[in-house]
Structures are given as structure tokens and as C-alpha cells.
């Protein structure tokens, strides 16, 4: 969550409510289940960590959703690191999805490239799991856990394929517009 919120600020500083709306828009129907208070908790943690600064917008009453949040240089650094990170099984689907949305919105990275990097990583892991399976005698129960890993990786790779198709159809600018329309 922290990384996604930071990345959403990479394009430009934003009010808390604007950020919340962007996140919800990006997550679609899943965004409805987001706890509205969560983003302010996250923002204040990020502020304490020196990753964002916040200013009160002129002439408005002191309320958390009226403050304008912006990235500090350390925050920008952290966003860049997060975008370049590829990993599995840690990052969940929502996090990866938000990474693509944020990267496209802020022109920080090409989502298609991020997907390709993630795919390479998963394929290498698939190979690793598969080699371990093939090294065992056929039918060994010792490979069941690895079979589970293989199936999960295959499902993730299939999802990446769907993502790739959507983002490579000029998806970068269109998704950006949609999120922008908030």
C-alpha cells in the first residue's frame, strides 16, 4: 500500500481525496472495498518516514483530506526502486496492477516493459521448480509442493499475458486518461 500511494504521487502532488479517488479508480470494483481512512494513515506514516511532505492548501480549513501531498527526493528514489523491483511470490496482484497504472500515469516506466521483466522473473522460477520436479523419479510425492508452485506460476504468467495485451494496445495513454478523469 505504501509503495502504491507513493507512486500515485509521482506524477504530481495531490490532495488526499484525489489520491483516494485515483486508487479507487485504478482498482475498479475492488477499490470499493478500500477503507477510506487507510490512505490517511498511510500518508502520515510516509510523512514521518520523510518520503512525502504535506502543505495545507490556501484558505481551506485544517482537514487531512485538504492537505496537498508531494514526494520528497527520498520518496522519488523509493518509487523508482519499487518500479524496478521484480519478485515473486511476495508482490500481490493489486500491488503489481497499481505499479503499472502509476508507472503509466507518471510516464516513469513503460508498463509493457515492467510486465516483460516480471514475466522473465516468473519464467526463471518456473524453470527452477520444473528442473527440481524432473530431477525426482516420476510419481514421487516429494514433488507435489513444487507442482503447486508450477501451477501457480502458470496462472500468474497467464494473467501477465492478459495484462500485456491490454497495456500494449496503446493502453498506456488510455489508462492514464481514465485515471486522470477523476
Amino acid at each position, binding site marked *: 500500500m505504501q509503495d502504491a500511494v507513493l507512486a500515485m504521487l509521482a506524477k504530481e502532488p495531490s490532495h488526499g481525496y484525489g489520491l483516494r479517488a485515483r486508487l479507487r479508480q485504478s482498482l475498479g470494483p475492488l477499490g470499493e472495498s478500500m477503507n477510506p481512512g487507510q490512505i490517511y494513515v498511510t500518508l502520515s506514516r510516509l510523512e514521518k518516514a520523510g518520503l512525502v511532505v504535506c502543505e495545507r492548501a490556501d484558505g481551506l480549513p485544517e482537514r487531512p483530506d485538504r492537505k496537498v501531498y508531494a514526494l520528497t527526493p527520498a520518496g522519488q528514489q523509493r518509487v523508482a526502486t519499487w518500479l524496478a523491483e521484480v519478485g515473486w*511470490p*511476495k508482490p500481490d496482484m493489486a500491488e503489481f496492477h497499481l505499479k503499472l497504472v502509476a508507472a503509466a500515469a507518471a510516464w516513469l516506466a513503460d508498463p509493457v516493459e515492467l510486465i*516483460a521483466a516480471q514475466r*522473465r*522473473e516468473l*519464467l*526463471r*522460477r*518456473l*524453470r*527452477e*521448480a*520444473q*528442473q*527440481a*520436479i*524432473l530431477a525426482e523419479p*516420476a510419481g514421487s510425492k516429494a514433488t507435489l*509442493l*513444487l507442482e*503447486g*508452485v*508450477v501451477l501457480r*506460476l*502458470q496462472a500468474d*504468467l*497467464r494473467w501477465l499475458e492478459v495484462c500485456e495485451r491490454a497495456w500494449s494496445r496503446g493502453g498506456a495513454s488510455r489508462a492514464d486518461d481514465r485515471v486522470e478523469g477523476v
Partner: protein
Amino acid sequence: MSESSAVVQVRDLVKEHGHGESRVRAVDEVDLVVPEGQTLAVMGPSGCGKSTLLHLMGGLERPSRGEVWLAGQRIDGLSERALARMRRRSVGFVFQAFHLVEELSAVENVELPALLAGRSPRQARRRAGALLERVGLTARARHLPSQLSGGQRQRVAIARALANEPLVVLADEPTGNLDSAATLDVLRIFEELRSAGQTLVIVTHDERVAATADRLVSMRDGMFVDDTRLAGFHPRGLGGLIGLEG
């Protein structure tokens, strides 16, 4: 010009199908070097040119432009006869639909390429027996293809592809008609070939099949859009894969 360790090499390869308005560029200025002993997987959406590329590499089709080299010999300009001979001796094909001769038993299918290449019947039979053993089908040697399961048929087809000790095995969707258990049988054979140093090119839609390769190229619209080395990475170890670490 061809690199000494390259078994297959293509340069600036173009293949167009059809004429005029309906002309399609199935392979669009592709360069590729497959070194000896490498297993290479080719993936990409339907119609992106994977089969066409494989056919060009194995001399089943001729390019519209560019060069195809096999073990240091340029093959795209060979006569039909010379090309057929080169294919028989140096290339083993494996297809999705097996392409076995239905009237011949498993062992007869496997020995056929050796006989066509001029080996003695005894030599050919001995080699076919050894190959069927290698793919775990000794007990089915006398069966007709129609008496075998899909997975068994494909294992016969792989044994046949190996009959003349080819420089390269070219497999087009080898597991496309198989369930996951039969796929795993085929993958075990490929893994064995890989560790024995057989050069192998596999076109596939299945990531699991691609993941047995050392290297993966991804195609779109006749071109390579990604070329990834899969072998030799140990990012986190198996513990990381199943969440036992961290």
C-alpha cells in the same frame, strides 16, 4: 561467416505468404543464432510466424529473403534433392499431430528415417530399439499408432526424430495435443536430451514447456520482441519459491 559453434543461424530472414493484397509477412527480418547444445523455446500469439520460422530453419520452406545456415552450410539455395537429403540427415522434426505412418508399427516408424538414409536394416532396427527404450516404449514396439495413446505416439515421434542423430531437433507444439501427465513425460525426454547436449528448438504455447529451455524468444508479427536467458539463474533457491524463507 557462420559462427563455428552455431548449429542453426538465420540472417535477415523474411518469409512472405500469398500475393498482392493478400500478402502476409510471416517472418520479418529475423536474425537468430542457436549455438550447439542450446535448447531454445519460441513463444508468441497464434499467427505470429513461429511455425514458418521453424520450417525455414529446417529447410521445409524457402525464405523470400535472407540466409539459413545449418552447421556452417548455407541451405536456403540448395536444390530440392540436396535439401531433402540434408533434412533427413541433420534435422529431426516433431509435430503437434505426431505425423506417424499409421500402417507401420512403432518400431517401424522409428527405423524408417535410418533406412531412408541408407543404413542397413539391422543397424536401423537396433537403433530404433534403443530409441524406443530411451522414451520408455520398449513394450509397445509392435503396436500400431492407432493402438497408442497420444502421449505414447508423441514419444514414438520423438524417437523417430532422433533416428539419424540429427544436429538439431525442431519441435512444433509437441505437447499441444497432450494432457499434463503426458506433457510431463515429453518434458522428461526433452530434459534428458538437453543434458545430453542435443540442440533443440521448441515452439510452444505452454509456459511449462518453454521453461525447460535454456533460452526463450518471444515473437510478435513475425519479429522477435524479447530474447531471455532462462538457464543459470538461482535467484532465491527453492525455499524462496515455496515461501519457506523470509
